[in-house]
């Protein structure tokens, strides 16, 4: 088993059955895992902010930073490895927020809304989600079988 770490504003894809893609402490960021069970190809994105229009230069250099540039790149990167859109399973986790976070800097909520919009516009159904709350999540995707795990606040991985 090879564990491949996905950093903040980063994405990794793989078609090797021995790989586990993992990303730590999502906070308000959102982790998006996609997997084609026929081709056994998958990818994991850890995006940070909803909208690339705040810094388009940065978005060109590092598309994985934003939902609107990161999610399309995640899919395209999987297609390159042979994945097919209509077969792909999509799971998302993260989008946590500070307590009483009404009215200001709702980055977690905005990240979730941004992701939902993109999937909706592209006719993609979200097959599993673990969102909101006030805690960090670590997630991993097993490329051999597409199982997606979320670490809860008791520090245990549970399959989503």
């Amino acid at each position: 088993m090879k564990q491949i770490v996905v950093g903040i504003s980063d994405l990794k894809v793989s078609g090797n059955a021995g790989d586990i893609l993992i990303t730590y402490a999502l906070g308000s960021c959102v982790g998006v895992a996609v997997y084609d069970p026929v081709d056994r190809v998958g990818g994991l994105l850890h995006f940070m902010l909803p909208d690339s229009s705040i810094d388009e230069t940065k978005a060109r250099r590092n598309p994985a930073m934003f939902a609107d540039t990161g999610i399309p790149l995640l899919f395209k990167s999987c297609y390159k490895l042979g994945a097919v859109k209509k077969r792909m399973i999509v799971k998302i986790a993260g989008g946590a927020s500070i307590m009483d976070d009404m009215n200001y800097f709702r980055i977690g909520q905005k990240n979730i809304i941004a992701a939902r919009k993109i999937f909706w516009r592209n006719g993609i159904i979200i097959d599993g989600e673990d969102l909101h709350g006030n805690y960090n999540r670590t997630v991993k995707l097993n490329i051999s079988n597409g199982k997606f795990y979320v670490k809860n606040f008791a520090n245990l991985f549970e399959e989503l």
Partner: protein
Amino acid sequence: MINDQLLKSVNNLPVFPATVHRVSQVISDPDFSVDDLVNIIKYDQSITANVLRMCNSPYFGTRYKISSLREAVIYLGRTNILQIVYTAGTSRFYKRVRGYYWGATKLWEHSVGVALMSQILAKKIYSCEDSGFFTAGLLHDIGKVVLGEFVYESFQEIMHLVSRRGYSFLEAEQEIIGTNHAELGGEIASLWSFPKETRDAITYHHRPDLMEKGEDSIPWIIYLADQACMMMGIGGGVDSLAYRGLKEVVNKFNLRQRDFEKSIVLLLKDLDKAKELLDLVKNE
């Protein structure tokens, strides 16, 4: 209030390196001499080694390759030297922290993140680069270094209050242990003879709204920088984002969502450039 066991743990902390305070004193004189500064720093081997490790870090953006303490003092400038010396002297306390983190170096990563973010926000909001923000950022969670042991022992009880009863992590610490990491951190800073502004920034970093009227810009900036790092999961711990958000911060700084998000983009860039700072704790 702080109980005997806690007091004992606080007293067992190594003293804060006097070298750092002396550097800060000397450098506050606009006519400080390079030799004086070098002579203070060089007697602390650990700080000297850390200064040299850090001074070529892209974060400080020197155009020269620096290989000696003297060159560092000449080329880095007052703000950078202060930041470097504080970082060099502080990392030793973050080697091992129990209770809050699953990974040993996470609190250091978080502290550096908050220090960098407080600089970004201070520049954006006050158009200034004051090393006071940086220092307070590095030290804001110093209370966790001591309280971690106690959080570890009472972890189930604390998490019960947080996950089931709507407590913030800070409130749960207070309820179960009788103090919280911010208050305790302020006490530690006081023992270490830090100036009032640094102590206040540490004590009030989760609740700057509770401060008496007066000079409260550092606590509010640290509060906001801390929240940004928690949201981004930078050095994320078990307490995660379980802290209260204070709406006042928006009016206080007149900060737009867009500006906050742009600052986060800058933070990620700075963290990338500041790898040498993050690695310090591994060399301790």
